[in-house]
């Protein structure tokens, strides 16, 4: 349970604030993408909405488990479920967070392929899930996979910027670059807590850019 000790250190409390911001912004983006899907009927916007909904759920799940861990409820649940310690709650919370997040990123990655083969989507989702489940160190597996997925996704948004040459597409490419660097920093953060802090701040910049982008999109 390497994860529990990592999250329960200095960052507990602060990470709740960061994760709440990420969860809310991802949820707003998902809802907006579904509204656009309703208007335009384009499948890609629905996939985009689904991916950000899953990302948002992943953060909400982690927040919920962290709150349970911090409250008296955690001890009662551990006693009822016969869990060895309160840390098990953090462990399962992180595990679910990783699962929802990696599936969300797999859906986003599929969207960037510009293809219409649901088998490939299922292949990506199953491969991502199985990789996490069979890994001996789910932390490394998750951040390695998410860094690879984000590298491809970011490259798609960079190419999109070079095609469109617009301020909004540049903002998206920069935001996803920050998410990619953030994910890479989390990957390095096992033994270096400084990287963990940097990772959170890089993600925060990314989500602020995503929110700003959304505001500009809606501006008439």
């Amino acid at each position, binding site marked *: 349970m390497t994860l529990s000790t990592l999250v329960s250190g200095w960052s507990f409390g602060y990470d709740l604030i960061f994760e709440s911001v990420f969860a809310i912004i991802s949820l707003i983006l998902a809802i*907006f*993408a579904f509204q*656009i899907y309703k*208007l*335009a*009927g*384009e499948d*890609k*916007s629905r996939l*985009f909405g689904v991916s950000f909904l899953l990302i948002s759920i992943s953060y909400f799940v982690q927040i919920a488990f962290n709150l349970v861990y911090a409250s008296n409820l955690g001890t009662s649940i551990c006693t009822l479920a016969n869990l060895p310690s309160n840390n098990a709650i953090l462990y399962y919370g992180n595990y679910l967070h990783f699962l929802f997040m990696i599936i969300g990123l797999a859906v986003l990655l599929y*969207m*960037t392929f510009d293809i219409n083969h649901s088998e490939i989507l299922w292949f990506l989702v199953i491969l991502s899930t199985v990789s996490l489940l069979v890994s001996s160190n789910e932390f490394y597996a998750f951040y390695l996979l998410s860094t690879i997925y984000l590298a491809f996704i970011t490259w*798609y*948004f960079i*190419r*999109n910027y070079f*095609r*469109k040459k*617009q301020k*909004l*597409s540049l*903002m*998206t490419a920069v935001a996803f670059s920050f998410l990619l660097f953030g994910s890479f920093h989390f990957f390095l953060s096992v033994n270096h807590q400084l990287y963990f802090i940097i990772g959170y701040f890089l993600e925060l910049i990314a989500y602020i850019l995503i929110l700003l*982008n959304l505001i*500009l*999109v*809606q501006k*008439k």
Partner: protein
Amino acid sequence: MIIKRDRVGIIRDILQIIKEKGNRINPTGIMYKANLSHKMLIEYLNETITKGFIAEEIDKNKKKTYSLTPRGYKFLDDYETIRKFFDSYGLN
């Protein structure tokens, strides 16, 4: 300079043409004004009908005309937002 239209741009053009023609136009009118081949016209008309943007009517002489639905008007009203969102994330 020739600006290549994407799918959403073509759909918008078709809807705009129907609107400008007093919300009733025949397929040939759409084909010429939207600068589409016959094959593309059929493809896009089918798509816009499926998505509920336009309605097809056949008169007693078996001539087809197309008109915008409320959803089609809504699409035109919100086109700029849709366009910007699609461009931001490469959804088109």
